[in-house]
């Protein structure tokens, strides 16, 4: 007899994630919830709009071969998405446990998936280590699965793509500074290789975005902007 008692396995910034045994199959139920500290208008918009976008993006990416959980069910008004259960650890918790060669391989996989996603005109919007699951297996090696498309969207603007890469590289710098260089280099290398939207210009845009932060050295900012105009 299948148990329908949901177990809360994670609480994200905007949704609760439950593990449910559904007819003998383990599935994840992601339920977006209202937050008491959020304006009621935002609660409604966040729940409906983000549920709809996430479901759409998930199904398109899955069909295109990007490593994401497969979508099973969606209920926009209730803010519920049901999807495949992936047994893995967030890279934000697990990247530090890996050897440098493994970190590099993971960086490459992430770079590749980012490129495939951007090739389809989709950006993730919250592309950080916390939103990549690492599935470790002794036979088939490590595998990464990209999750949480709540801030994703469609755009042809390379700015959005560059922001994805920027967020990923900054999250590794904040969490694992000692791995940042190897990891980011691998991400960029694979991204260039698989991008069909102009990988080089996206990566150049990343360094431009970086210099937009407050109090970035003025000379550095000028140098980056100058480079952009030289093209």
């Amino acid at each position, binding site marked *: 007899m299948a148990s329908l008692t949901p177990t809360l396995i994670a609480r994200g910034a*905007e949704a609760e994630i439950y593990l449910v045994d559904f007819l003998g199959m383990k599935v994840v139920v992601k339920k977006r919830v209202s937050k*008491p500290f959020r304006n009621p*208008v935002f609660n409604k918009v966040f729940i409906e709009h983000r549920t709809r976008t996430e479901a759409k993006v998930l199904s398109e990416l899955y069909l295109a071969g990007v490593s994401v959980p497969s979508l099973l069910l969606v209920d926009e008004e209730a803010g519920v998405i049901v999807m495949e259960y992936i047994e893995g650890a967030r890279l934000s918790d697990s990247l530090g446990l890996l050897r440098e060669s493994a970190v590099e391989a993971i960086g490459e996989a992430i770079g590749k998936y980012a490129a495939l996603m951007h090739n389809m005109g989709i950006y993730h919007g919250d592309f950080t280590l*916390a939103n990549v699951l690492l599935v470790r297996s002794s036979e088939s090696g490590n595998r990464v699965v990209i999750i949480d498309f709540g*801030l994703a969207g469609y755009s042809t603007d390379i700015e959005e793509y560059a922001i994805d890469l920027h967020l990923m590289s900054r999250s590794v*710098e904040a969490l694992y*500074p000692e791995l940042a260089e190897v990891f980011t280099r691998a991400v960029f290398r694979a991204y260039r290789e698989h991008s069909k939207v102009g990988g080089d210009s996206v990566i150049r845009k990343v360094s431009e975005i970086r210099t937009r*932060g*407050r*109090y970035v050295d003025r000379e550095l900012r000028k140098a980056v902007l100058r480079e952009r105009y030289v093209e």
Partner: protein
Amino acid sequence: MSRKHLYEVPVNIPLVESPLIVLGVESTSHTFGVGIIELLNNRVRVLANTLSQYKPEKGGIHPSEAAQHHVNTAHSVVKRALEEAGITLREVDAVAVAVGPGLGPCLRVGATLARFLSAYWNKPLVSVNHAVAHIEIGKLVGGMRDPLIVYVSGGNTLIAVQRDKRYRVLGETLDIPLGNLLDTFAREVGIAPPYVVEGKHAVDICAEWSNEFTPLPYTVKGADLSFSGLLTAALRMAREARKEKSQLGRICNSLRETAFNMLIEVVERSLMLTSKREILLVGGVASNTVLREKFEVLADFYGARYYGTPPEVAGDNGLMIAYTGLLQYLYGRTTKPENLVVKQRFRLDEEVYPWLP
């Protein structure tokens, strides 16, 4: 901050036998402040925290006018601080000064004063990052060791954590800071200056005129924020609304709700990313009661501990410079007057701080 209270230093510091006294000078923006702090073993005591603020009669901060204000008031602020502390300059062990980030002309007033005090009285000189000082004083008063740091002021909006003896920025504004958004809007629609009346910001006062909410551009990119589109849209809406009080109230309410919700969202996301159990709110906008309430509910929801720095140390002040200067002094990070330079652009994540975990 109580003058009698002994605050335990929440970071690792070398043990020193005799008491130490550090005087700190703050002049990065509109505030000229002098603070004096005393270290007794691993505890500190506030001896003085005095300041004088430049308040423009119209418009925003004019850097050279603000600097002129600092020049005019520096002497009396130092004197008042020493009187309050009941000490003379001879008893001070080190002089600290905020060298950035900030407005050039203003920074140079503080730097000049600190160079003089250091050279004339032969005291070690310490150069302090203003942003680091905001955070350190928050950690001290709130008794926090490893919080998720939210720093919001007129010049900064960022979320940071401590890692490998550095501050690491998780998210920040990509254009204008939150305080600047509120100030600029208030100024442009004619409800400021004065920007703050009895602890309430002009936008907060105006927001009380209406409960209505109209959607405005909401721009969150991961943990980064962008407020410039929001400002432009709100200003355009305000122009269309003319001078009608309830209409302006509606726009203020919508602007504030949107901006605060954006900040709350990135804080929430950073909290998830880092799994921190403490949230520390620092900087001038930390005095905003509406924002504080939102943070309290957020922290409560996640079972995290929240601390918002109280107004007297949330805004710019000399005490935070003195305290951070003290930490640096304990680690031997002093400089000579001839080598002290101001740094208008001085990022939080630029330097290593030996007391951080």
